[in-house]
């Protein structure tokens, strides 16, 4: 569902430089490069109390963003479709982390709280309903009340 557009690489928040060497790995480098991607993702996720990987056209991502903003959280949002090749890599990595997402084939949105993976929109909703989301956010320092 996401349409990846060829755009310039944007410098990522948190000081991690995203290189655009995405499509050039040789087969024996793939495992190490994916490890690099995972590290990158982890680094991005640790950059803020709440990190949301999203896509600019995705309406479900809008839902998650609205929910978090409504709670008073200021999440760090990465629009993967605007990150070009790096975005695609990250999306692939996230797909591995979150198998069987229910968002009609799209991986995003993916939410990290306190550097740890929370999940997709259904997980976020479930956590919110059963009352575990807000304490989690408070623990991570995203909410102060």
């Amino acid at each position: 569902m996401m349409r990846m557009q060829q755009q310039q690489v944007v410098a990522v928040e948190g000081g991690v430089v995203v290189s655009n060497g995405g499509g050039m790995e040789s087969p024996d480098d793939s495992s190490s490069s994916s490890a690099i991607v995972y590290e990158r993702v982890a680094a991005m996720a640790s950059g803020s109390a709440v990190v949301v990987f999203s896509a600019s056209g995705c309406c479900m991502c809008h839902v998650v963003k609205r929910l978090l903003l409504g709670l008073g959280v200021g999440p760090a949002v990465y629009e993967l479709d605007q990150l070009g090749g790096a975005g695609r890599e990250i999306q692939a990595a996230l797909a591995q982390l979150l198998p069987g997402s229910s968002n009609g084939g799209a991986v995003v949105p993916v939410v990290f709280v306190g550097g740890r993976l929370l999940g997709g929109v259904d997980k976020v909703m479930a956590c919110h309903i059963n009352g575990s989301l807000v304490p989690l956010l408070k623990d991570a320092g995203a909410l102060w009340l």
Partner: protein
Amino acid sequence: MVQGEESSWRMASAHDHERAAVHLNQAALPYHGGVQAHASAALPASFLDFQPAAAAAAYFGELEEALIHGAANAGGVGHHPGSMITSDMHSAKSAAAGYLAARPPTLEIFPSWPMRHQQQLHSGNSQQSVGSTTDSSSARNTMAQMELVSPGPASSIRPSPPSSSEQQPQQQRQEVMMVTTDDYSYKPAFAPPPATLAAAPSFQQQLQLPLHGGDHDKRKHGLARKDGKLVDSKTERRLAQNREAAKKSRLRKKAYVQNLETSRVRLQQMEQELQRARSQGTFLGGCSGSGDLSSGAAVFDMEYARWLDDDGKRLAELRGALQAHLVDGNLGLIVEECMRHYDELFGLKEELARSDVFHLLTGSWATPAERCFFWIGGFRPSDILKILIQQLDPLTEQQLMGIYGLKQSSEQAEEALAQGLQQLHQSLADTVAAGTLNEGAAVPNYMGLMAIALDKLASLEGFYQQADNLRKQTLHQMRRILTTRQAARCFLSIGEYYRRLRALSNLWASRPRE
């Protein structure tokens, strides 16, 4: 000089005819319907004994009303068509009554007017004299003629052709006949059954003939200029025939409309029966009574009917258990059953969402009253919570906190989902409306546009799933907050609430309507 007057009059009256035709447009269509009705419906013979002289006069009065408007604008004719017309009406009433008695109640395939009589009619309605009598009478004639036959392809033939005094009455009649059949077949709204097509045109043609009468007859300029009273008996007879035909058509229209009404009522009753049968779970699998159900939708409807049956049993069980004050353990089992029952419904809906999400979203599987409260394909969690909070009265402090927290969380989640859905709608609308809509499907990127729109539409499924997920989570959380006994009462309340909504829908469907 006379010629000049005549031509100017003709131009003016042609203009009037158009204007008055607009007035009579309303009358025209039902009139046609009436004609149709006679052709298709079998009417009793006593039909014609019906003496609506007043009705005919009233109808004719409307006609004359329009005529007065038209004739008054004829540009300084300077006569008093009104007085002429009212006097005519009086004579018309008596003529109509006598005339009615004389008419046999049969559908006349061949016109009953002998040729000689026809000619008299023609002569009786000279169009050439500028007298007010013939002005209004022929104007009225043309009016009636235009009301009978739609201003379609044949209309060019009718309004005042140039003076062709060489026209034989025979030829005119022929022409008139052709006009009527043509116009008849051009009436798509009243597509006649082929069997009656033969009968109807001739009937209509019979109506037409006396009315078309002397319109095209330019030979008789016999009548001198008159002012005021109508003296000509031939005109009077023709007018009487007009009125009789008008009355007949009016009655036929009435019968036709009554027929339609009874059919409509019957159809409504059948629909209600079907609705009732479906909601009570006697739905026969595979029968697509309501339009085009996809196979997934049909299966779901069947399963849902079965689920409703089960639901009824569960409710009865719960009620019995609560009254019997069962031990918590046993009650707990029953409550678990209920929870699984609801999960089963969510599972059914999820399955349907994969094949036909729109059947779910439109709510055609639910009754109308339930549909009022629909929110993305099901109940709105916070609505249910509001109801339950009132029902579950003795709650501990902690429970109250829990429930209010749950209500707040579900409200926040609902809000987020609604906003996302709104953005999806906007995005879909923007995609479909991309480019210029004026060019239709000739826009260069049409297929690409459609592909993008398809994707967006597909994401509706995701929203539906999230909404259902929210409902399920809310119910489960509810169960966790409450004690066993309270949970039993909770499920009983929800079940009864929906049962009442369904009963309300049934009552609504079967309420008497005048």
